[in-house]
């Protein structure tokens, strides 16, 4: 166990190192430079460009830039090229905005997909199963932005509530209940959209996992000895079918920072995804690289946690 953790940690650190190199190269070898972003701006004189290049080490060779960048990142001093704000603080601020979306989306995903998946596995081939299958394909296939507009049209026309942004503009101080309801309405659509693909995929996965367990001998035995169907399904089968999902708790971690670019820009939600999008448009390399790095760290920690959880819950796995 200890040796597994040690080996795994070393491997992840090496992977992270290469990720940092690859992302750095992708950004810097692509054509175009941040100092050329706005050549028509009259305030952007050649002296300014010169000062800018010197201040951000742009004239140094690539490997020096790499070292400077990651030194700054680890000492927490990275600043955005666009507005000279510390990058980590900016990310943290946006992260707090994205967090409610992530939490509500995850709760929706996990609470909806399990009942749906289990039910369609139990009534395999029936009307419910077939319509659930079709709907999950529909949800996987629908483009997020199209679905967003359908929902916007529906909600705005039916309920007459505003949905764009984090709260209604100029809501000011109308009682806390009003404000809370306002926030909930604004939160509902983007998090539902963030959850759709997850619901569709996860419910399919629950279904297939459940079907596999239902075909096992011990489930047949349980049925044969005359247990109630509910007891067979929920006690004998479900508990074993849940095993792989424990490990998926680790894999939802990267979603923390991945906030959807498209959905956040449709709903004008000032979250991580939008910040990433704005950083890309402004060629704000420190922000892009930091987001990339943080998300790679989260992916690696996520897989690590899921490996560990697997080890803990499944006694058949011994390392």
């Amino acid at each position: 166990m200890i040796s597994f953790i040690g080996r795994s940690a070393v491997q992840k650190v090496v992977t992270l190192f290469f990720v940092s190199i690859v992302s750095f190269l992708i950004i810097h070898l692509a054509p175009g430079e941040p100092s050329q972003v706005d050549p028509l701006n009259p305030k952007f004189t050649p002296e300014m460009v010169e000062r800018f290049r010197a201040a951000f080490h742009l004239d140094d060779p690539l490997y020096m830039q790499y070292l400077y960048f990651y030194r700054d990142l680890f000492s927490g001093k990275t600043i955005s090229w666009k507005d000279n704000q510390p990058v980590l603080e900016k990310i943290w601020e946006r992260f707090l905005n994205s967090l409610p979306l992530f939490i509500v989306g995850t709760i929706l995903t996990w609470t909806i997909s399990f009942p749906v998946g289990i039910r369609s596995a139990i009534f395999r081939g029936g009307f419910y199963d077939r319509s659930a299958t079709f709907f999950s394909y529909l949800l996987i296939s629908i483009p997020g932005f199209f679905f967003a507009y359908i929902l916007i049209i529906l909600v705005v026309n039916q309920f007459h509530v505003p949905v764009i942004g984090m709260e209604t503009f100029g809501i000011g101080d109308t009682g806390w209940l009003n404000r809370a309801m306002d926030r909930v309405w604004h939160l509902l659509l983007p998090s539902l959209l963030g959850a759709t693909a997850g619901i569709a995929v996860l419910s399919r996965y629950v279904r297939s996992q459940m079907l596999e367990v239902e075909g096992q001998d011990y489930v047949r035995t349980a049925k044969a000895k005359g247990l109630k169907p509910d007891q067979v399904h929920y006690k004998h089968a479900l508990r074993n079918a849940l095993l792989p999902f424990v490990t998926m708790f680790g894999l939802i971690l990267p979603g923390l920072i991945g906030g959807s670019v498209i959905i956040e820009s449709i709903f004008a939600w000032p979250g991580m995804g939008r910040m990433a999008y704005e950083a890309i448009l402004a060629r704000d390399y420190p922000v892009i690289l930091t987001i990339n790095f943080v998300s790679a760290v989260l992916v690696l920690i996520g897989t690590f946690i899921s490996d560990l959880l697997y080890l803990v819950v499944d006694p058949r796995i011994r390392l």
Partner: protein
Amino acid sequence: MDINSHTGTPDFELDEPLAPKRTRFEEFWRLFKQNKLAILGLVFFILFFLTALLGLVLTSGTDPFFDPALVRLQEKLRPPLARPNLASLQAAEIPTLGFYLFGTDDLGRDVFARMLQGAWVSLTVGFVAVGIALAIGIFMGGIAGFYGQRHIRIYQLAVIVLFFSGALLLVAGRVYAGLALFACTAGCILLSIQLKKSVRGKIKPAWARFWYFNTLSIDTVVMRFVDIMLCFPSFFLILTVVALLPASIYNIMIVIGMTSWMGATRFVRAEFLSLREQDFVAAARALGLSNFRIIFRHMMPNAVAPVLVSATIGIASAILTEAGLSFLGFGVPPPHATWGNILSDGKRFIFDAPWLTFVPGIAILIVVLSFNLFGEGLRDVLNPKLRERN
């Protein structure tokens, strides 16, 4: 009994196989037909393919049959099936069908013509991107699965590292340093050849043993590279690269392809690892076939099933990704229509002109859905373990 009745032929010759003879394709089709949704997917897929081809023919050229770029400002935001106001149009501006099948957009362009033009973009992006991903994935997975247990030796590593750093220096403009590294590369290769000749059969000296020292196995290198690529948030990575590169449809295809080959690599590697231990591969090797022939003639046809399924679903997600990129304003430069940018242009008018959202949205939905259904049907047919026993 059947055999005994053929008294004329010798016993050891079975002239008729007892099982009903079906080709692979007939068997496949028989199973595939049972899946109604998959058939529906296939039908829509063929329709989409024909539409895209027809769209390319009818909307391109100097005087296209349907002109997607013709601006009629007096006819803007007309609803679907609206008849044009003939009094205000010149003869050349009258829509070919006599009415606007899908309405017009805010510049009075015929949405039907623009949809036809955009279909080809979606189709090519889907197929080319997945083609690139498959080529990379099969190559890497094949190497990792077939040659995976071999180790990269120090001298091979030295050659590779020297060559690529030389190339990098050349690109960076340091011509002399780059050429010097190339010379070192050539020196390494010559040294290895010389060494091989001189120490054949003899005990190698210590430095030569170091020269041949095993480092990482090929499998480790490839699979760690896959891990590295999986660390990137894929849509964000695609967005970054597409934003930095000049806007063109080819860049999008290449970038989507280069960021989505990891699944295929894993599938091919897993298949190869199990196939290479099987008897028919051992037999092929015993017959003295070349590795190339074993890989491409004997193993690949057996390994291709899961890859095919993931490719079909990959086309669906590539189409979605392209639509998302066009929606955000990256991708094909403006006058050319894609389904994503029709929707993106229409988003300002969702309450006044909902058809600008619904027509492209439903088109993308149907195409992606048909690919997904077809892919799932393929998966059921190609994987005997998933088949329902009857």
